[in-house]
């Protein structure tokens, strides 16, 4: 190519694919800022410094796991108990990682490390959908992770430093940003009757498991059973 700057490349560059991921993950950012702020406010009021709160969000990126850890710490639990609880809460990432792993095969080690580190409910949902359409690659998935991580850390920092000055972010309806995104992702996943049936089964099972299991275990339990029924019915 004689003048690469003036011509549109046939294949988007890594930077363009990264930006595509950032745009794709923007709804996650909108959802994470207020929840991260809530963590920052809570952590500060329970004895964390701002630096500790932000470090925790930046290195754990654990959502519910962080909140549960915080409440156990407040209750005087030992370090081991807190770590066990946060690990158990986030065991669903084992399932997510297994589901994503075929798409991660063949990527460089630092890329795999980042994609694994930035794996959350939301980044998993966005990336698995994008992979299914054949659009995702390592750069776009990294972009989704970057924008999600930025939202979580920025939110925590705002909450820890700004605290009460921010007021209640829920008055802007941001608490529906994540449910709205999951709803759209669910619709995107349903291709054909079998998927619709599996989704309906998972929904019913989720309600049942929510009544009997603590925390977020209903997600794992409902998914394992509903996907099993779908796989058996396919044979």
């Amino acid at each position, binding site marked *: 190519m004689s003048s690469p700057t003036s011509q549109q490349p046939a294949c988007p560059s890594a930077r363009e694919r990264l930006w595509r991921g950032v745009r794709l993950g923007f709804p996650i950012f909108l959802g994470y800022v207020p929840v991260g702020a809530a963590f920052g406010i809570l952590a500060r009021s329970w*004895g964390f410094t701002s630096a500790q709160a932000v470090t925790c969000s930046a*290195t754990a990126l654990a959502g519910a796991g962080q909140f549960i850890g915080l409440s156990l710490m407040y209750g005087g639990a030992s*370090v081991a108990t807190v770590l066990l609880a946060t690990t158990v809460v986030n065991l669903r*990432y*084992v399932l997510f990682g297994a589901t994503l792993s075929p798409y*991660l095969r063949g990527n460089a080690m630092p890329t795999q490390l980042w994609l694994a580190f930035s794996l959350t409910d939301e980044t998993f949902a966005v990336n698995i959908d994008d992979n299914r359409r054949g659009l995702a690659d390592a750069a776009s998935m990294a972009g989704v992770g970057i924008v999600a991580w930025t939202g979580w850390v920025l939110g925590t920092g705002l909450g820890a430093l700004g605290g009460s000055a921010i007021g209640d972010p829920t008055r802007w309806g941001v608490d529906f940003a994540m449910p*709205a995104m999951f709803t759209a992702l669910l619709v995107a996943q349903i291709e054909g009757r079998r998927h619709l049936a599996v*989704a309906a089964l998972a*929904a019913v099972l989720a309600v049942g498991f929510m009544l009997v299991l603590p925390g977020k275990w209903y997600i794992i339990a409902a998914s394992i059973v509903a996907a099993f029924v779908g796989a058996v019915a396919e044979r």
Partner: protein
Amino acid sequence: MTDGYIWAVVIGMAVANFAVRIVPVAVLSRLRLPRPVERWLSYIPVSVMAALVVGEVLRPGGDWRSLADNPYLLAAIPTALIYHRWRSFLGATVAGVLFFLAFRALLG
């Protein structure tokens, strides 16, 4: 809470959360999974999404909401329709938040 205790938890959480994420990726991205397992995993995303939506609209923030008086549940319906029609995640998310605000205002 002492400073040392908090830092021990912060560092431990970073290690624990990275471990649960990296182990399946590191192990499974090197193996070819058996066909039945791959078929089972292919239904995991739609199942996870359905379970997540149910959790988020029926028990937002960990508290059960009634079916009749629930702006989360009501707003999820136009959100799904908007995504189905226009296929835009950002558009559906923004529209969903606006519907949520409207339903929350209407329900008081």
